[in-house]
Every structure is written in C-alpha cells, then in structure tokens.
C-alpha cells in the first residue's frame, strides 16, 4: 500500500500519550508503593499468594464462559439479522437496550429472576416449584452475556454484511454442504469481526464488577471486583494498582494469543 496517512495518527497519538501512557505510568508507580507511600515490592509478592492466584483463575474461567456463550448466541443472531429486510433498523434495535442504565436493568433482573418474578410464575404453570435463580452461576453468566451481546453482534454483523454473496453461491455450486460452506467460507471471512467481538467481551469480562455483587451475591470474585475493593474500601491503591498491572499483562497475553490464529490478511 502506497498511501502514508501518518498525519491522521496525530490526534490518536496525543490521546494515547495523555490517556493511556500517563495513567499506566501512574498505575505502575502506585503498584510499587505501600500504604505509607514507601517504595516496596510487597504488593507483587502479595499477588502471588494463593488467594489472588485462585481469584485470577476463577476470573479467567468465568470470562471464558461468558465469551463463549456470548459468541454462541451472537453469531447466529448477527447472521440472521443480515438476512432480514430493514437489517440496519433491526441492528439498531439490538443496540438500543444497552442505552438504558445498567444498574436499573440489573434491578429489573433481580425482580425477573426472583421467587415471585415472571420466570418462576411461568415455571409454576408447568408445575415446577419456584426456585431461587438469583445468586447462582447461571444468573451471573446469563446477565453478563446479556450485557455483552450487542458488543459481540455489532462487529460480526459488519463483517457478515459486506461479505460477497457470490462466494457462498460458488461454494454451494461446487457441492459444499451448508455446514462446510459456513466452516470453510463464511466463518474464515468474518474472523476479524469475531476477534473484535471477543476482544470487547473477554477482556472486560475479566474486570466485571457490579453484577458480581448484585447478581452473583459476591460468590464470584473477579479481578475487577478485587481492584474495586482495594481502591474504594481498603484504600490500598498500591495493591489495587498491582492487580491492575496484572490485568493489563493478561490482556497483552490474550491479544498475542488471538493474533497467532490469523491467516493471510493484508500487509
């Protein structure tokens, strides 16, 4: 590619310098301070105790579950949406619910999942006893998936939307089954959209906080919750920053991981 539109990077670089590099520097600096503001590595030692390592692992496990189910539900949704009439209107209607305040929607979920809520009322019609759905792994993953679905659908929709339909016809004409066409033609062509979707789901899922308390009753503790607590309750910015440093390192690692699967593309 001959074009060099480096000039367009200038505002972006200013943004990175001010709002990414500077805060990271601050976090790295704080992570080396103890409660009295003295220099120490104790926070890092502390991170490698069993409590924080277990937390990191569970955090990962839940983020993985959430991303998996979000993708599982979002991909077919995006695919079907591209086939509807007025597809852009439908897409907008997917996004609009995320404009209503999350805390309010969470309160609504507390009501919906409740013992006397609509779901249990519905189950009772079929003769099931009311069960407490709240504060279980199920309700936590469900609400998290709910939160992330629009973020996953949007990039996948965009990559599906502009796909050249003749490729699919060609594949079908050459005798490929619908599944083979999907696996060998459609999915590889939309992999960039899927990756964007995973990035905006998996990484924030590691640092989910509010719904860990409201929906999971603090029985799920993510790295985000721990940072939140260190900053706001323990007032230990050093330890909070240390966990944040690890979160950022994990993010780098997961980006490397998603990058290796990339085939071809342009230079």
């Amino acid at each position, binding site marked *: 590619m001959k074009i060099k539109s480096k000039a367009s990077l200038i505002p*972006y670089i200013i943004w990175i310098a001010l709002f990414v590099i500077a805060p990271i520097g601050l976090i790295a600096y704080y992570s080396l301070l103890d409660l009295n503001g003295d220099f120490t590595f104790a926070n890092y030692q502390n991170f490698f105790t069993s409590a924080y390592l277990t937390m990191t692992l569970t955090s990962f496990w839940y983020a993985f579950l959430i991303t998996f189910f979000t993708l599982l539900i979002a991909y077919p949704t995006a695919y079907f949406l591209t086939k509807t009439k007025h597809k852009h209107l439908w897409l907008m209607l997917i996004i609009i619910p995320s404009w*209503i305040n999350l805390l309010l929607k969470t309160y609504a979920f507390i009501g919906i999942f409740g013992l006397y809520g609509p779901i249990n009322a519905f189950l009772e019609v079929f003769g099931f006893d009311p069960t407490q759905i709240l504060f279980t792994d199920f309700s936590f993953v469900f609400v998290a998936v709910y939160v992330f679905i629009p973020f996953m659908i949007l990039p996948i929709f*965009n*990559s599906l939307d502009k796909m050249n339909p003749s490729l699919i016809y060609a594949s079908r004409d050459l005798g490929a089954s619908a599944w083979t066409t999907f696996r060998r033609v459609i999915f590889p062509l939309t992999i960039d959209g899927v990756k964007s979707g995973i990035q905006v789901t998996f990484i924030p899922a*590691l640092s989910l906080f509010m719904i860990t308390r409201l929906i999971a009753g603090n029985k799920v503790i993510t790295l985000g919750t721990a940072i*939140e607590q260190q900053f706001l309750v323990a007032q230990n910015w050093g330890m909070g920053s240390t966990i944040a440093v690890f979160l950022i390192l994990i*993010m780098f690692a997961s980006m490397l991981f998603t990058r290796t699967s990339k085939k071809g593309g342009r230079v």
Partner: protein
Amino acid sequence: MRSKLSPAAKIYLAIVFVVLYAPIFYLIFYSFNSGGTMNSFEGFTLEHYQAVFDDNRLIVILINTIIVALLTGLFATIIGTLGAVGIVSLRNKKMRNVFLSLNNILIVSPDVVIGASFLILFTMIGVKLGFASVLISHIAFSIPIVVLMVLPKMLEMNTNLIDAALDLGASKRDVLMRVILPYIKPGIFAGFFMALTYSLDDFAVTFFVTGNGFSTLSVEIYSMARAGISLTVNAISGLVFVITVGVVAIYYFITSRSKKAEEV
C-alpha cells in the same frame, strides 16, 4: 436475491429480542405502579411521569447526559477512525501491534482505575472539573472501542481500490474522503453507537471526574441506591427509551425512503 429466513431463524431472533427487551419492559411496567416500588404492582398511575416533568434538576441532568453522549460519540468516532486508518497504514508490523495493545488498555482497565487516574491527571494539569472533564474522559475511554469497530473494515478493504485511486491521480485526501471513508462507513457508525453506549452506561469514571454541580443520570442513579431508587428514574428511563426508539425509527424510514428515491 436475498435468501429468506427460515421459521426457526425467525423464532431464534424473536427470542433474542424478547430477552434483550425484557428488563426494559419490566422497568417501564413498574413506572406506572402507584405502589412506589418495583416489587408488587398496586395500581396504575402517571404520577412518576408527572414527577419527572416537575423536577427541573432531573431534566437538566438528563439533557447533560445526552449532550455528553452525543459529543463523545462524535469526537471519539473522528479520532478513533483517523487512528484506525493511521494504524493500518503503518508498514512496521511491530509498531502496529504496539498501537493495538495500547489501544486496548482502556478497555481492560476497571472503571475505578480509569476514573481515579483521570482525576489525578485533571487536577495535576488544572482542568476544572465539570462538563469539560467529563466529556474529555468519555471521549478518552470511547476511542478504543471505535478503533476496534473500524479496524476490521479497514483490514478487509481491498488495497487495490486505494492503489487504483492513487494511480488514477487522486490525492491522499481524496483517497481518504472518497474511497476509504465510504467503504468503512458501517464500521464508523458501529463505533459511534458503541461510543454512545459506553458514555451512557458509565458511572465510575464520570463520578470521579465530575464536579461543580455537573452530574449525569448514572451518577444520580447509583448514589440513590442506599435510600432506594425512586420510580421517577424508571419513568425517565421509559421516556428516554420511547423517544429513542421513535427517533431511530423515523430517521431510518426517512433515510431509506430517500435512498430508494435516489435509486429510482
């Protein structure tokens, strides 16, 4: 040309939509509750809507929230799109990866960390807390999502298009305006709407960087939790929801009609 949706696909989409909208309709349903809570529905009333219109402070906060969201969407989209175009134009693969990694840092950082560090930043450089600091922060944390939405479109764009345009004597500016932007437009719109979402949803960052009487709806709602969220907030959400859906529907039908007119 277009293959039709099978009934199974229609049912699938219907379920997704029902689930997405269930909590919102739940909220709106209880905004008509005379009981005063979101628990048991006692009787129909419009008093909570009346309360919204009587409360100037709440309406001003709502307007603030919308202005910040729209401007955030606008500026974050401009900077983010230019950034994505720039990143793709980088020859050096390492440099490109460095940018992408830096880009994602704000997405992974918990809100409290972002909020606290921005607060320190603003007080250090002496930005007055209020509208400006909130807007700048929202733009800052929305840029990465715009980049992530635009990037796939940039990557899949056929380089031959750009090369051809350049060979035909187009200037770089022309290439950007006439070739690149129209092609990546869906990504740009996606980025804009995601930035809107981020801005409307944010509580923690706004909380830290706001001041001098400036407030947004999220900050207001979160701080109500201790004493109980009043149904006035449900009512205001209901109004916002209905107006948004209305505006989107009208806008869509106007634009699609004019498009059709052009085609004919």
